[in-house]
């Protein structure tokens, strides 16, 4: 089974050309951090309440990325809020994405291609070698949004971090998403980590708008 982090990264790969949507959807970086926290929660290493995050088990998970984040969290007893930890691990966003991409390459789901744009700019692409895992993630998410039943924990988590960074638009049409807005809002509200990811992305968008206004 793929980790939540791998599923989010896989979702951010353009199935047509292997481009990374995270280069356009800036909020994806926060979704990656949220995914790591969800992976740690599913592994029963951390727990959250409405504001704070607690480490409950320091034994390694066997996943290098998760264990590095867990060790980092244990070293900072002063940092206790979910939002604070999102911002802290946000600094490691490139590592998170890179490690998840490498893991997906190692599992023969993606391959790595490097090329030059106009002979100067390096362009990296990650075309799908096996499209089934991405399809599986998309189908699960679509079913979770379109149904009215009580969803699986993992699917709640996945939808709730994919939504605020714009990744749902690559799964369902705008019309369908608009018609299911209430359901999506419900799923996005259920988990503290998702609520804080949404807050962080809104904060990032506000900062970017303010910066753009100053430039103009």
């Amino acid at each position, binding site marked *: 089974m793929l980790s939540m982090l791998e599923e989010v990264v896989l979702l951010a790969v353009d199935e047509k050309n292997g481009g990374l949507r995270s280069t356009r959807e800036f909020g994806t970086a926060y979704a990656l951090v949220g995914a790591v926290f969800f992976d740690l929660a599913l592994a*029963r290493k951390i*727990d959250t309440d409405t504001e704070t995050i607690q480490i409950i088990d320091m034994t390694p998970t066997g996943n290098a990325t998760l264990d590095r984040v867990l060790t980092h969290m244990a070293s900072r007893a002063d940092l206790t809020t979910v939002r604070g930890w999102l911002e802290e691990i946000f600094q490691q966003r490139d590592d998170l994405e890179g490690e998840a991409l490498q893991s997906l390459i190692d599992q023969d789901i993606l391959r790595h291609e490097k090329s030059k744009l106009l002979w100067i700019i390096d362009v990296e692409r990650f075309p799908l070698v096996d499209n089934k895992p991405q399809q599986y993630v998309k189908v699960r998410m679509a079913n979770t949004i379109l149904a009215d039943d009580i969803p699986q924990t993992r699917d709640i988590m996945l939808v709730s971090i994919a939504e605020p960074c714009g990744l749902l638009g690559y799964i369902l049409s705008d019309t369908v998403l608009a018609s299911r807005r209430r359901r999506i809002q*419900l799923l996005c509200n259920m988990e503290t980590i998702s609520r804080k990811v949404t807050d962080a992305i809104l904060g990032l968008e506000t900062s970017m708008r303010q910066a753009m206004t100053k430039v103009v």
Partner: protein
Amino acid sequence: MIQLMEETRGGWCIVGVRGRLDAESADELESALRTAIGKNAKVAANFAGVDYISSAGLRAVIQAARAAEGKEVEFTICSLTPHVKKVFDMSGLHQILHLRGELPC
């Protein structure tokens, strides 16, 4: 640490829960609720003695409710304390779970 008590009253299996619902106790709660759901047509979780619920605790409740939905068992959460009710409200769970102010019987 939680304490669980099960009794049958007026056609309902009532699972009494007391203590903190967190990562440590979530599995125990989910297992108790799933067992009750597997054996009864109507199950009520009495949360009057629950003073704290974390995300892991909420997930346990959601998954138990999912199991009840799959088996067409009537499942309700009753007598939430103000703090715990606030957490349910904040999570929007009142929209998909059946919450009651008091026990059904």
